[in-house]
């Protein structure tokens, strides 16, 4: 890299967005952070120590992380092949796949969650399909189970996995694969040694997107699993609204923030390294 250190005037175009975010996001965030470490006006780590020394808190943190990881994994398994298909497709096929991915984004999360309630019921489509195929001996319910939550959440977040991977795959020169083929590489070898490494930055971005959204989702667990399953996000909402414990609410919100920021920053760093290595 030999770009000059001088500020590019084009960067100024980002100013409105930066200002907007600083006001609607930065300021409240600072207030939240402040409240989480102030006890009676004095800075203290006591709220965090108190929260983290309660075994129940670790159940909640465990729930949050487990669900976020599972949702991310499902999105990756479904999203990667889709992104690959989208990058290879052209004309009408590509347009159709794109519409199929982007159009569902216009349907509200609440509507989707309610729809999943019907699909995941004991007499719902999934249960009928599984018993029909002989995979289940009797109809089972997925609604209000962790599996049901993962399925429902993955449905909402999968476009955020597909699109970043697609945008990276699209830039990969298809002749690279052909070149490998002419040198005798099998399709499987070509995928793992050529396509996959080149698409890693997209995968990492997708993981960061989906993980941070899945870790902080609130409405979906509320509707698909109910009050018996607490995550950091639901506990935060409940602390503020119900228990009227703003201290606990700010603390859990900050713990959630730290977790997601760690994953996003970590994956961004990883993406940079992998991108630079290729």
């Amino acid at each position, binding site marked *: 890299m030999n770009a000059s250190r001088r500020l590019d005037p084009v960067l100024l175009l980002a100013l409105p967005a930066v200002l907007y975010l600083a006001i609607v996001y930065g300021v409240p965030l600072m207030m939240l952070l402040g409240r989480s470490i102030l006890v009676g006006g004095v800075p203290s780590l006591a709220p965090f120590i108190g929260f983290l020394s309660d075994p129940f808190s670790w159940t909640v943190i465990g729930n949050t992380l487990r669900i976020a990881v599972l949702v991310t994994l499902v999105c990756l398994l479904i999203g990667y092949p889709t992104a690959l298909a989208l990058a290879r497709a052209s004309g009408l096929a590509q347009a159709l796949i794109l519409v199929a991915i982007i159009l569902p984004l216009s349907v509200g999360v609440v509507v989707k969650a309610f729809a999943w*309630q019907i699909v995941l*019921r*004991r007499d719902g489509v999934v249960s009928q399909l599984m018993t029909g195929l002989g995979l289940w001996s009797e109809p089972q*319910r997925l*609604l209000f189970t962790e599996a049901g939550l993962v399925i429902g959440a993955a449905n909402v977040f999968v476009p955020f996995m597909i699109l970043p991977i697609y945008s990276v795959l699209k830039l990969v020169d298809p002749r690279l694969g052909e070149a490998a083929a002419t040198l005798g590489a099998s399709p499987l070898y070509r995928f793992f040694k050529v396509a996959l490494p080149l698409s890693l930055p997209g995968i990492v971005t997708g993981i960061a997107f989906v993980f941070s959204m899945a870790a902080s989702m609130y409405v979906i667990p*509320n509707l698909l699993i109910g*009050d018996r399953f607490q995550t950091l996000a639901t506990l935060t909402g409940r602390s503020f*609204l*119900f228990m*009227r414990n703003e201290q606990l609410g700010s603390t859990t919100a900050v713990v959630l923030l730290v977790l997601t920021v760690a994953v996003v920053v970590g994956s961004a760093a990883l993406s940079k390294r992998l991108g630079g290595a290729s």
Partner: protein
Amino acid sequence: MDMLSAGKPNRRALLRAGLGATALIAAPSVLRAQTKELVVGGAAGHKPWVEQTVVPMFEKKYNCKVIFEGTRSLVNLEKMQKNKDKPYMSVVQMDDPVMILAVKEGLLEPLTPAKAPNMADLLPGSTHMDGMWANYLQPWLGVAYSKTAMKTAPSSWAEMFEPKYKGRIVIPSLQNTEGLPSLFVAGLLAGGTMESVQKDTDAGFKKLASLKPNLLTIYTQQPQAFNLLEQGEAWMIGPAMSSYALERKAAGAPIDLSAPKEGVFAMPSGIAVVKGSPQQELAFAYVNELLGAELQNKLAGPTFSIGTNKAVPKPEGLGADVKIHQIDWANVAAQRGDWIKRWDREMAI
């Protein structure tokens, strides 16, 4: 991209749109200047009867406009607290436990018989904490059940605990006011008295934990729970509110509400005036109307509730011999935090 330039509007169209928008924004403020507005905060479930019966009658009688904001009691409390210096809601319809919090935070204006004369005709125990709020209609809590799934109505709260109902039972969260009696019901089934189970909930918690295999879910959103019941996924919801369950039944849903032999619970529906709120006179008039026999007679039937005015007869569906338990809400307010803690740890999946 093409999309941006294709639909580019010309200058005249922009001007026209701008004028239209200005007119739209300006119009309501003109209207607002002409009539007095009263903002009432309440539960989302109240919306139908408030807007169909109370609002038309009140607007006509007092020549004003009533805006009903239907959310949840705790959301209302949050709004009152955040707007303490400049309240915009004048009346709140909230559950008693939340009223206690509102009193503690100094958010309510006391009701007096001079400002709300109908207070004199209420059943004993209907006003609380020196008139800070009063109960108007009290829905009752029983067991709601699916008529398609169950041949006979559940006659005891104990039926929800029977193993044959695995995964078919829904209960309210302790977050919801109607969820608290589940703890007392469990205590009663474990052999306590109504007085003892409210003081010491240990036996209740242990009994409630045995309900876990039967639980389909624990709800925080009432409509969601009733959807499950009406679709046949859930078979029983308990405790369930008469005001919601019987209204769904009347609308043709294949469900019914049973009053178990151990007794039903009266829901603590309170109404109060917000301290320092606009239109105080109208606010007291609104409260007075809801405490009056005229409105309560009109509403007790359709809302399937017990009236608090002496002149209102017992609702249909509740036999004369059914025990109606009243809950000690001050005790609830004092202990609720600890109960929630224990509930979270013991009722989780």
